[in-house]
């Protein structure tokens, strides 16, 4: 297996989202590799994966490695046995968005006292529990996060007003 193929495999396997051929090419920083060679290597990888449980496909936003559809039952089983556990940091972030929406990343960080690791908001977005509702008109125009309908569905709420009220003393605005 060529080095180029392995490098592309590594990048695609490590990425959470699809990567474009152009991005792959730029990540290489290699004057000896052309964009065409990248495309070729991607095609070869596709063949390599014929006898594996995953495949390389091109979707709207780029290339990604995904589980072949034949293995759906087992993936489903494994998720059933071990549903994803959310970290306290993720739960606290979600809680702040629920009770303080719309809220910026900076505000979440200032209440929690530590920087937010980037994948927390990503996971919440992937779950479609939160979305960006707009941007605050302050320097940097930070994104404002709010909860979604899917969040209400998944948590069995009819309306965002149904979230339990907080004891008076813990009101956030102090």
């Amino acid at each position, binding site marked *: 297996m060529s080095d180029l193929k392995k490098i592309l495999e590594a990048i695609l*396997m490590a990425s959470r989202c699809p990567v474009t051929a152009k991005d792959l090419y730029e990540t290489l920083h290699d004057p000896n590799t052309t964009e065409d060679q990248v495309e070729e290597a991607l095609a070869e990888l596709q063949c390599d994966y014929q006898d594996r449980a995953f495949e390389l496909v091109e979707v709207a936003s780029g290339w990604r*490695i995904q589980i072949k*559809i034949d293995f759906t039952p087992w*993936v489903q089983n494994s998720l059933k046995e071990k549903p994803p556990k959310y970290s306290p940091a993720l739960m606290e972030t979600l809680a702040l968005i629920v009770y303080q929406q719309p809220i910026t990343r900076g505000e979440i960080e200032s209440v929690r006292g530590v920087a937010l690791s980037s994948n927390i908001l990503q996971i919440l977005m992937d779950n479609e529990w939160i979305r960006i509702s707009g941007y605050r008109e302050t320097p940097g125009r930070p994104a404002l996060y709010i909860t979604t309908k899917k969040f209400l569905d998944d948590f069995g709420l009819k309306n965002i007003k149904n979230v*339990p009220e907080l004891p008076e003393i813990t009101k956030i605005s102090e």
Partner: protein
Amino acid sequence: MSLNDIVQTAEKSQVFATVKGEPVTELPKNLYIPPEALEVYLEQFEGPLDLLLFLIRKQDIDILNIPVNEITNQYVSYIELMQILNFELAAEYLVMAAMLAEIKSRMMLPSVVEEEEDEEDPRAELVRRLQEYEKVKFASIELDDMERVGRDVFIASANIDHLCFDQPKPQVDIGDLTHALLSVMARKKQRKPHTVEAIKFSITDRMNNVMNSLREFDFIRFQDCFTEEEGRAGLVVAFSAILQLLRNSLIEITQEKPLYPIFISLAKNKTKDSQS
């Protein structure tokens, strides 16, 4: 501002900083950190033990036989320099300076040490702390060198968003969310800086009050010096004032028997005291 800038400014003005209102015209002597690396180093120290350990290791000093006098002088030079350079100096640095000074003074009294058989080397505690800290420092570097997920090691994964099945609902409910929020808020409260209020009571005033009362009456009852309404701060100040007066030999405290009232009176040897 680099040290070079400081030196250049110093050359121009002959004064490059002011400490406690005093202009400083020369850098402290005995610095073992190369001047050009000084600023970088000083910012990096993880505390007084780290600084001390650096001074010891830099000079190849045997940690079990620290020349306290020399190290103390060097340490204090750095502390002064950090103050000159306006580094935010954690109180712990000053505590260490005091500890070093104490060890130094204890070591200057060799006769006392010899007399008491079980007297430990005054440096023992410091050496133990330095060794323990060095071990932790070493371990932390080892730990940081290990390959870790997210920095050196990356998880390989394949996407499953396109698979059609009922994704299991999250194993969390809204109660977990409120719980999470409450714990954030509880932590935030702990983080809140506490405001230091200006002292409402002055020890000197209180000392004068006690002395005035004693000039009027021969005795006052110990408990009458305290006013409950003044709260804890008031009680502490009143008590400190009495201790201070006692220390200055201005008053005497008497109690006839255990559990009997305690009385305060003017010191009888007050006049003699001034002669000695």
